[in-house]
């Protein structure tokens, strides 16, 4: 299991470390600094390295490396998941973009968290909600002894993500369905890859220990309730989904119902993946021609295919140009575009873009003559966007039922948004 955990800054200083086993020595931090940071390959080398028969598993948060060292044959996913969770825990305590200084300023808290989340290299309780119940340096309250027993059963309990006795004046649930579309089009406009990854984010403010039942218009579950009101409509076929640990996986496996006792506050209920029947919100037609050694002419048409009642926001089309670009003459019918030398691209921005509308961009690019004869690598065009109240997969929430002993009523709000994923590219 994990022998040592430490945080290291980009210069290679150990910000804080905690040794869980003594089969590694502090000196291993040096070998990591020399072999990984020193090689200036932080972003490019594999995140699992073996140096001097110790294995280093690491990931990054801003400029901080979270490094786990081990000498045994550990489960690497376990280590990585633990590191991610550790970062999330620290974010909850120190703020989303916590820095090295923040860590140093709270080292006693950090040590407590190191001790409570891991014992002898085995991950223990990492639930933020529960950790906050008893690790709260700085606003330490004297506690009465009978509290402790309920606290420990909370820490070790089957439902360690929610504490008992939560009360809210108004019982509300906010549901955000966030979809990101990944797309790769070939030069000829053929679809090489398209995929929607969705996540259902929830923010629950519910009293007591309510049991919730949640339903999407997933094809399999829709077909099951054929006789209900949804009859006639076929659902979306979801390739695969993963759930927050509060969801009873056994129930889902048996009859595809999503049941859970939610954590209080914000959490990601589920993630899903759809690869069929995707409504692509934009179409891009690009013609990019290299005329001889010194000129490139670009014509791009961008059209929105979604309903005209909806608007896309922050649409950015990134059209690559050669690195030796000297000048760009750009004309657009809608939106603004300018040449950005640091990106080697023309950035074409539309703040607000109505459904069913389209915009054209044409550009004349003049190149500086170079001695370097290698051809331009023609990287793909990239597109960034977000379209509220639209789901590319067609997924929507069918129901959310909340059952609690006290039988209160719950207000529900649902939002949808579709964004470009980390790669929405068109090859040119």
């Amino acid at each position: 299991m994990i022998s040592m955990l430490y945080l290291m800054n980009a210069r290679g200083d150990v910000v804080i470390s905690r040794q869980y086993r003594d089969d590694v020595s502090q000196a291993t931090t040096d070998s990591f600094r020399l072999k990984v940071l020193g090689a200036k390959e932080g972003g490019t080398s594999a995140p699992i390295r073996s140096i001097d028969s110790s294995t280093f598993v690491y990931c990054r948060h801003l400029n901080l490396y979270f490094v786990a060292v081990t000498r045994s044959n550990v489960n690497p996913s376990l280590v990585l998941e633990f590191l991610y969770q550790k970062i999330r825990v620290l974010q909850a305590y120190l703020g989303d973009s916590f820095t090295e200084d923040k860590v140093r300023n709270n080292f006693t808290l950090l040590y407590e968290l190191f001790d409570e989340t891991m014992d002898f290299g085995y991950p223990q309780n990492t639930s933020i909600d529960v950790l906050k119940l008893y690790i709260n340096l700085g606003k330490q309250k004297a506690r009465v002894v009978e509290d402790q027993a309920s606290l420990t059963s909370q820490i070790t309990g089957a439902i360690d993500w929610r504490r008992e006795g939560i009360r809210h004046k108004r019982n509300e649930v906010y549901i955000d369905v966030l979809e990101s579309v990944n797309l790769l089009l070939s030069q000829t406009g053929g679809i090489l890859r398209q995929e929607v990854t969705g996540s259902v984010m929830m923010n629950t403010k519910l009293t007591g220990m309510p049991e919730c039942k949640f339903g999407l218009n997933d094809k399999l579950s829709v077909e099951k309730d054929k006789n209900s009101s949804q009859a006639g409509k076929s659902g979306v076929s979801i390739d695969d989904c993963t759930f927050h640990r509060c969801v009873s996986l056994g129930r889902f496996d048996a009859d595809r119902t999503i049941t859970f006792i939610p954590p209080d506050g914000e959490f990601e209920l589920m993630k899903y993946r759809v690869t069929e029947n995707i409504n692509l919100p934009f179409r891009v037609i690009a013609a990019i021609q290299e005329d001889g050694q010194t000129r490139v002419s670009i014509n791009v048409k961008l059209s929105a295919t979604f309903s005209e009642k909806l608007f896309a926001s922050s649409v950015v089309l990134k059209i690559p140009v050669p690195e030796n670009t000297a000048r760009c003459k750009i004309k657009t019918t809608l939106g603004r575009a300018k040449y950005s030398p640091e990106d080697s691209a023309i950035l074409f921005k539309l703040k607000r873009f109505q459904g069913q509308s389209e915009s054209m961009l044409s550009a004349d690019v003049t190149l500086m003559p170079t001695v370097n004869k290698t051809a331009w690598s023609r990287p793909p065009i990239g597109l960034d966007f977000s379209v509220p109240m639209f789901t590319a997969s067609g997924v929507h929430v069918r129901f959310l039922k909340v059952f609690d002993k006290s039988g209160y009523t719950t207000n529900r709000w649902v939002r949808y948004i579709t964004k470009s994923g980390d790669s929405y590219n068109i090859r040119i």
Partner: protein
Amino acid sequence: MPSKSSKSAGGSDSRFFTTQKKGEMHELRQELHSSDRSVKVDAVKKVIANMTVGKDVSMLFTDVLNCIQTDNIELKKLVYLYLINYAKSQPEKTLLAVNTFVKDANDPNPLIRALAVRTMGCIRVERITEYLCEPLSRSLRDEDPYVRKTAAVCVAKLYDIAPELVEDRGFLEILHDLISDANPSVVANGVAALSEIAETSGKDVMKISTSVLQKLLAALNECTEWGQVFILDSLSKYTPADAREAEGIIERVTPRLQHANSAVVMSAVKVVLNYMNMITAEDTIRTLTRKLAPPLVTLLNSEPETQYVALRNINLIVQKRPAILENEIKVFFAKYNDPIYVKMEKLEIIIKLASERNVEQVLLELKEYATEVDVDFVRKSVSAIGRCAIKLERAAERCISVLLELIHSKVNYVVQEAVVVIKDIFRRYPNKYESVIATLCENLETLDEPEAKASMIWIIGEYAERIDNADELLDSFLESFEEEDPSVQLSLLTATVKCFLKAPEQTQEMVQRVLDMATEESDNPDLRDRGFVYWRLLSTDPEAAKAVVLSERPVIEDDTSKLEPELLDTLIRQIATLSSIYHKPPELFVTRANIRASADTDEDEYAYEDENDVGAEDGGGGGGGGGPVDLLDMGGVDLNGGSNGVANGGDAGGDLFGLGGGGEGGGASVQKVQVCDGSSSGGVVVSVGFASANNSPSMEMDFVNNSATPITSLAVQFNKNAFSLSPANQAINFAAPIMPGSTGSFSLGLSINPAMAAPVQPGVPAPPTVQVAIKRLDNGSVFYFAANFELECIFTQSGALERSAFIATWKAIPDTNELYSTVQLSGSNIDVAIQKLAAKNVFFIARRPVPNAPDQEVVYVSCAGSNGTSFLAELTFKVGVNACKLCVKSENTSYSGLAKDAIERCLK
């Protein structure tokens, strides 16, 4: 809110780092003794702050320890933290804290009870363990689950320090009972602790029975994500009784594939894959195959680090069960902004999944990659195209045309990589695609890397008859022959010879020049040897030369990064472990080194530790298959006598020479000495002797297995030694496992490896010992022993000296180098003695009567060690006396003592 907390009182700890003035320690000490509680807390924080930045604050040990008696839990935690760090340096004083620990372990507050148990386990001071047992056994039965779960892990901690204590006190049984605990967290930690103990001890402490199995499966639904991983990992080590049980467990495990935590998913995949081997029903297999694909694909949507882990594992899975992902090749297409380490892994899987159905798409994709920016990725993509061609015969033509397109781009490294793979394609499909040679020849001047040059030269030589100006092309390379890389030189030599055999008239002068350069001007032995071989072949029998040099070569196949079936099966069992990342079995990189004693010992650990290091980047390296085969380039002629020869030195020697040599080498006749009594080797008793058969030394080993598990295979490594000995083969595989309580033996062939030489100072006697490390591959334990080597085992056949040379040498060696002894013999027959010596390569030189002493006779003998040192000896016999006087002389006095002992042994 988070920002607020750091500003509020006590939140900002930065002030504790700021005191840097002189007399700081003194001040701190006073503050630690302050009666004001907040001053005290701050002082401890300052101490910890100093500890964090790496300053030594161990001198405050007693003062910090004084603060331990407090009911402030925050202060207590800090003091405990300090203790864990410095206990090792102050073991005596740590005992002072024991009382507090014991008291805290009885505190009414469960958090404090758990804290005490947790901390005590972390203090690795042997003396404290005795005091730990009492509170630990109470905590294991504590009413509070939080204490129980902490105690469960503590048992594993204790086992690491004092395994006997854990076994004697019956903690293992209690731990086993915790699997049935009502609380899932306790179950999870109990499972984790038991699994670890099982792994380190090699004993089956887990003992999964049907009822335990049910409990584990039940706990699986309730545990935290981490607990689920522990349970799934321990399930994967269990072997179901039959297919029905396997199916039953799989059914309970498959819902885990939907978990958000990738570790849970990976471990579930591992269980399913392992149990699938038990299932024979085809439709069940098909259903499971269908079920496994989506979660694996989903993993590719997670963070890049997780993707990397998934991809390395998928690499194994597609080799074992290609059906799972055969339709999913698209998801492995690299995204433009994937990190390079993800792209490289994806590429590897694309090649594995490429089939005639999807090859069009794959080629388009690979061509796209070949225009990207990252050089390594581009190179690998180009070579991937070649590997597709080699793998898929029908797609070969398409692949070649893509490669030609890429060559036209004139990007230097693309062209070079393309040339290398085209050579491989030619080897796979001889005489099919030579039409592209013309294009290749246009790009000769861009080639500057040895591999590309060598490949191009190979192509020219191979197709010399079809290239009009083959001799001119080769000639252009010859100008810089001396500066070229050895691989290019070798390739040039062979190509020129081929060219000559095909068209002797035009190239006679050229081949002469090359042979001259290779044999006379080069100091590279490989090149010289090959040059001489060709020269002799050409001069004695040109027809035979043709048969050898132009013979048909075996067709190659793409086996880059393809794993042996046994290794693959081992690795599939290791899915979701580091082993699956490195694609190496765990025993090759897990070394349970104990740096407990002191941190600096790892400097002088055995040299073999370093060799076991695993480079994470073993990504298969570019290049096509068949690299090493090309070097020989001799067709089917195999001079090595097969690789078995190396595997078992003794036997192979016998095969080659076939001269019997008498029963000397037989394992049974060798005198063995017990070198390892089992106390430090987990119960394996080893006896060792040395022998020599047909001039190859061997180490004869007897094993007595007193451990609990059968020994199937061992890895052996020597430390550097005075004899440059190393095992010919590092693996010892027993034909039948040595069951507990029984014995087995093995004859380990030894070879002389100059790299293993431990320098011996002239004049200082060489140490006779050979230090040996043995690793049990079944449980990973390593033990060491030293055996005294017997020099006669490496006496060579060339140890005989000419009489005159003997006399000259004898006289040249100063008398001070002489060593004397008297050897008791069984008889006084000189001929028998000489025969005995001759059998061990100690050669008779002369015998003569001693003047003035008619009943005495002197015999001179000589022998030589493998490093060429000669030893001369004079034996004086006296009629009727069953003994002789021995005098040994050598220029190298370091070894003469050992030689004297060796000759004594030979005489007996």
